[in-house]
C-alpha cells in the first residue's frame, strides 16, 4: 500500500533558480495493483520514486509505504520495498548468484531459505546459465534479469519500477512486463513509471499522468478515456500536456 500526500521536492538550480521537481502530488496505490506513473522526461517520476525508496528526502508533504513514513521510518520502508530503476546497476565484479545473495542477506533473510528461494527465482527467470558470470561480462538483458531477481529476492509487498524497460530490446522488455504482471497477480502493490504509452496501456490498472511535478489526470485507463473523450492514450497524453503547457507557459 502506497500513500502519497502533498509530496513536494525542490532543487536549487543556478540556471532556473529554484527548480520544483514535484509540486504537491497525491496518489494512492493498493495491493494487487499496478499503478502507472506516466510522464515525459523530466516530469518528476524519478524524483517521486527516489523519495519513495528513501534515497531522497522530500522538501514537504509525506509518503507512507505499508504505513511506514519514508522520512522518519526509512529503514522499515526499505524492508518493505523492492526498488529497480535505470540507475540501480549491477556490480561489475560480482556474479549473478553472489549479487542476488548479497541483497537477500542485507534484507536479513536466513541463508537456507534464501538459497531455496534463489534456486526457484533463478529457475523462473531462466538465469541458471548466468549464475557464475561476472556483472561486467553480462549483456544488458542478463543484467536486467539480475536486477529483477535482486529486487524481488526478499519477496517485498511493494515493488517500485522506475523506467525499468529503458534500453531493453523487445524480447527482454516483454519478459520484464510479464514478470511484473505475474507479481501483481501474486498480490504485490506495484508502482511502475514509464514514458511509453503501450506499456502503460498493457500493464497498469491505474494511471497518473505526471508533468512538470503536477499530476494532470488520474484514474483507470477507462476512466481517463471517458473523462477526456479520447480513446487513444497517446493522443490523450499529448492533449493533457499541451493544455497544461498553454495554461502555465
Amino acid at each position: 500500500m502506497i500513500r502519497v500526500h502533498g509530496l513536494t521536492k525542490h532543487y536549487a538550480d543556478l540556471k532556473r533558480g529554484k527548480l520544483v521537481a514535484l509540486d504537491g502530488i497525491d496518489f494512492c496505490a493498493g495491493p494487487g495493483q499496478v499503478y502507472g506513473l506516466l510522464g515525459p522526461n523530466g516530469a518528476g517520476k524519478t524524483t517521486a520514486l527516489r523519495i519513495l525508496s528513501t534515497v531522497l528526502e522530500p522538501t514537504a508533504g509525506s509518503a507512507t509505504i505499508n504505513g511506514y513514513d519514508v522520512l522518519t521510518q526509512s529503514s522499515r520502508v526499505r524492508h518493505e520495498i523492492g526498488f529497480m530503476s535505470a540507475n540501480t546497476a549491477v556490480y561489475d565484479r560480482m556474479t549473478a548468484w553472489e549479487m542476488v545473495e548479497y541483497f537477500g542477506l542485507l534484507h536479513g533473510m536466513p541463508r537456507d531459505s534464501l538459497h531455496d528461494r534463489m534456486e526457484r527465482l533463478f529457475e523462473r527467470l531462466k538465469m541458471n546459465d548466468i549464475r557464475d558470470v561476472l556483472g561486467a561480462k553480462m549483456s544488458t538483458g542478463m543484467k536486467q534479469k539480475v536486477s529483477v531477481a535482486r529486487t524481488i529476492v526478499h519477496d517485498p509487498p511493494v515493488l517500485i519500477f522506475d523506467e525499468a524497460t529503458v534500453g531493453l530490446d523487445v524480447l527482454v522488455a516483454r519478459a520484464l512486463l510479464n514478470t511484473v504482471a505475474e507479481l501483481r497477480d501474486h498480490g504485490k502493490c506495484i508502482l511502475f513509471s514509464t514514458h511509453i504509452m503501450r506499456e502503460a496501456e498493457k500493464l497498469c490498472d491505474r494511471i497518473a499522468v505526471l508533468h512538470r511535478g503536477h499530476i494532470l489526470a488520474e484514474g483507470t485507463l477507462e476512466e481517463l478515456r471517458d473523462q477526456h473523450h479520447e480513446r487513444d492514450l497517446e493522443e490523450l497524453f499529448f492533449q493533457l500536456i499541451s493544455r497544461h503547457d498553454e495554461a502555465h507557459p
Partner: protein
Amino acid sequence: MNWTNVRLILSREIRDQLRDRRTLFMIFVLPILLYPLLGMSFFQVAQFTEEKPSSVLVVGARDLAHLPPLVENRQFAARLFNHSDQARRDGADRVGLLEVHFARDEPEGPDRKRSNPRAEAAGAIQAGQYDAAVYFPPDFADRLEAFREALRPGTHRPEEPEETDPTAETPAAQGTPSVPRPEIIYSTANEKSQIAFARLFSVLERWRQEIVQEELAKVGLPTSATRPFDVRSADVAEETGLRGAAVWSKVLPILLLVWALTGAFYPAIDLCAGEKERGTLETLLSSPAERSEIVLGKLVTIMLFSMATAVLNLVSMGVTGWLILAQLPQFGPPSPTAAVWLSIALVPVSALFSALCLALAAFARSTKEGQYYLMPLLLVTMPLVILPMAPGVELNLGNSLIPVTGVVLLLRSMLEGNFWLDWPFALPVAAVTLACCLLSIRWAVEQFNSESVLFREGERLDVGLWLRHLLQDRRPTPTVAGAASCGVLILLLRFFLSLSVSMPDGFRGLAVLAIVTQLAVILAPALVMTVMLTTSAGQTLLLRRPAWATLPAVAALAVVLHPSVDALRAAVLQLYPVSEQTAKALEGMFRGAPAFWQLVLVVAVVPAICEEIAFRGFILSGFRHLGHKYRAIFYSALFFGLSHVILQQQIVACLVGVVIGLVVVQTGSIWPGVLFHLIHNTLGLLVAQVSGKVTPQLLDRWPALAWLVSPSDDGMLFRWPVVVASGLAACALLAWFQRLPYSKSSEEERHEALLRASETDD
C-alpha cells in the same frame, strides 16, 4: 547499527577490491617490485656518480719550488690524497678525481699589473669552465718564506702556526708577518663546484700539514708534536642494538604514513566515486542497510587495504634494505621492536586517513574527479608529516596535540628506544587521533546522508550566471557558503596585510594597524557581503534590540568568566610558549604608555563592534542554515579564533567565541555579544595593567587579595578555587541563556522536527 550488515558490506567490498586488477597491482605487486628495482637503480646510478672527476684550475703555482711539491706530472702529488673515510666521502682519495688545469703564466714586467688572474679565474668558474680554482697570490711563496723565517728559533712562537686559521687576521702587533693566503674559488650555486671545493680543500690541508712537518723536523721536534692527543668516539647505540636508530626513526614513520595514505586513497575512490559512476550506489542505498552501516563497512575495507599497503611496502623495503645494508657496516637494520611500534601506530593512522579519503571520495562524482582530490589531501597532510623533521621539533605535550604530527613524533621516540621516557604522551596522541578519526567518520557519514552530494550532477561553470544567481536570488540571511567565504576572505586579507606591513613598534603604530585591520579586513568584507548577498541587514547582523534582562546577565557572565579565561590563557602559554622574539615584539607594541582610555578604544571598543558584526553577525547567521545551532556556533568561533594573529591567542579566542556565539544565538541580538566582547577585552587590559603591581608586599598588606590571586613570573595568577568558582558560575549563567527561547532558522526547525518524529517512532 546492524553488525551483520556491516560485516556483509565489508566482505563484499574486500572481495570486490581483490577482484580489481588495478588495486591488486597498486597494493601487492608494486611494493614487491618497487624496492628491489629502486635498490638496483641506486647501485647503478652510484657507479656512475662516484667516478666523476672535478676539473680544477690552478693559478700561480709556479714558484713553489722550495716547498714540498704540490704538483707532480701536471697533477696534484699522489701523497696528498689519503684514504681515510673522510677523504673518501669528500672524494679526495684518488689522484684521478681532480683534473688539474694550469692558468697560463702571467706576463712579466709592466703588463703584470694590468692583468688580474684572480678575477679571470673567478670569471672562468662563473662561466662554468672549471668546477673550482685555487689561486696562489703572486707573492705567496715569498710571504710564506718570510713567515717561516720569522718562526725560526729566536723569534719562535710555537703555538701560532698550529692554530692559525687561514681566514683570520693574525695580529700584526705580534711582529710576525701576516699569514700567506692561497684561495679556493668556487660557487655554492653549483653542486659540482662544492664537491670540487671539498676535494681541493682536503688536498691543500694535507699539503699544509707536510709543510708543518718539514718545519718541525728542522727544529728537531717529532711529528707527533702537532697531535698532542687523539679523540676517539664510542657509540652506546652499538651496544643496545640501536645503531642507525636516528635515521630509521625519521624515515620509517614518514614512509608508514605516506603509504597508509596512498593505500587508503585508491580503494576509497573506487568504493565511492567508482560506485557512483557505475550506478551501483543507488542499488545499495535502496537496500535496508543504513547509511552508517554502509560507511562503516566501506571504511573498514579501506582501512584494511591502507594497512596492507603500508605493511607490504615496509616489509619489501625492509628485506631489500637488509640486503643493501649488509654492505654498510656502520649502519644497522632497525630493531625488531620497531616492527611492533609501527604496527601499533598503523591502526589509528590508517583509520584516520581512511575516513578522510572516504569522505573526499564520497564527494567526488567520478573516479576522475576523485583523483583530483589526492593533491589537496597531500597538501594538507604532508606538512603535518614533515613538520617533525624540522630540527628542534620534539615530543612534548603541545606537539603531541597536533594531529598526525603527534603520531609521527611519538613513533619516532619509540623507535629511538625512549619508551619509558615518553609513553605518557601516548595518551594525548591517542585522544587527538581518535577525535580526528571520529570527526572524519562523521564527515563521511554526512556526505552519504547529503543527497546533493550523492546525486550531484555535472554543471557547466558559468561565472556570469552564478553571479546573477548570487545577486538575484538573495535571501534575508546569507547562505552557508556565503558565511564560509566571508570567513576565508577575512583570513586571507589578514594574512596578506600581515605580510605587507611590518610589526609596529610602539603604541601609535599598533593603534593604526589594529584599527585599520578591524575596519578594512574584518568589518568591511562582512558589511559589503551583507549588502550584496542578503536582503535584510537587520536580520543578518541581528541588529534587533535584546531583552533588557539579558544585558546585565551578559555583563555578569563576562566578569565571572574572566578568571577561567585567564587560567586557560596561562595554561595555553605553558603548553605552547610564545617565542622570545614574539614576546619582545608584543611588549614593544604597548610601549609609549598611552592613556588607559586610548588602550580601551583600540583593544576593546573597536574590536568588539567590528568582530561581532563580522563573526557573530554575518558568519554566524550564514552557518545557522546548517540546521545545527552548535555547529554554527562552533564554525563561527573557529573563524573568529583563526582571525587572531598568534596561535596562543587563537586557541583562547576560539573558546571565547563559542561563549559569545551561544549568547548571541540565545538572545537573538548582536548587542549582548558586543557588550560581552567589550567587557572581556577591557577586563583583560585592566588585569594586565594591575598585574605587574601585585607583589608579595602588597598581598601582605591586603590579605583578602591573597585569597584571590597569587603573584607569578608574568604578573599575577588567579588562585584555583577562584578559577573553579568562576567556571561554575559561568556555566550556571550559560545554562540560563541556554534555556531562553530563541528564534530558529528554517533548517534548524526542520532538523528538530525530524528528530522528534524519529524519537516518537522509537
